[in-house]
């Protein structure tokens, strides 16, 4: 059985993929392990919240998105340390 992945974890995976891999859809799909439709839904939400931006067909983190990613990583580590689910 696949372990449950929360919405926060999916967003973290997408933002990490954009930050560490390239911002191409194919790379994000591979890294985040999502269907195309679901990924587009998340990307739309992240664009609306100005956490990412689209430039020449590639996605990039905004300054706000980078800070959000850092905070999310810290929260994940804290949750992991205390044994909370993330």
């Amino acid at each position, binding site marked *: 059985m696949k372990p449950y992945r929360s919405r926060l974890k999916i967003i973290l995976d997408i933002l990490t993929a954009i930050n560490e891999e390239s911002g191409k859809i194919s790379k994000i799909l591979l890294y985040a392990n999502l269907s195309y439709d679901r990924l587009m839904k998340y990307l739309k939400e992240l664009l609306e919240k100005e956490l990412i931006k689209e430039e020449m067909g590639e996605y990039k983190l905004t300054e706000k998105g980078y800070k959000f990613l850092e905070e999310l990583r810290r*929260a994940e580590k*804290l949750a992991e340390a205390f044994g909370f689910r993330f």
Partner: protein
Amino acid sequence: MVDLVFNFNVAFKNLDGFSPIISQILNESYTRHKYASMKLELKDMSIKPVLFFGYDIIMSFISAFVAFIVSYQAYRAHTITKKKSFLALELGFIFTGIGLLADSILSYAAVASRISHFFGVGYLAYFISTTIGYALILGSYIIDRVMTEEAVLAIVPIMRYGALSESILLVLIGAVMIQSMINLLMDRSLNKFLISMAFASIFLSHLCFMIQALAFASLLIIGQILRFIGFMMFAASIIRVVKTG
């Protein structure tokens, strides 16, 4: 600081204004601190609590500071994730920190002003605040477990001990410790190990406080050191978390 010669017996026998439960807690505080004034009766002990008195105030103060840092990190995590378990953790560590801070400040006030009653009030504030704090930390685990399908045992009641205040704290932190140990066994990592050991250390410190209230005064020192080590482990874990960004 060392030559504390308060007449605790007089101070704590005149507790007419307090309810029986508060009087009992104040008397336990008296038990905790009475060794500071019992120089003549401590000759047979290898380590004298009277020499340790003062350092425990500093260690409590630093532990309170660490508790507030953990609380701040939990606040940041709650702000970004909106998870209620982080909110409970944040509040839990705030109350734990307030308790330690109140105990250290009022103990210092008692030493500085030579008004022994501050010890009792300080310990009462510490007991109430720490009880709420531990209950909230335990609550954070319950919230985290109840709201997910993978139900892991969240509360393991331990109800065997006699001493009033420390036994209540012992039960609360004991359940938290067991939960953190289960988490560690399920998925091992250095951060989880540090948090588990921190809770274990604090649990043992309360066990020492409880026993020392009944018999062995030297355990007061060991208890203080164990609690300090516990909070230092929290600090180490938080430093690792902060470095993540």
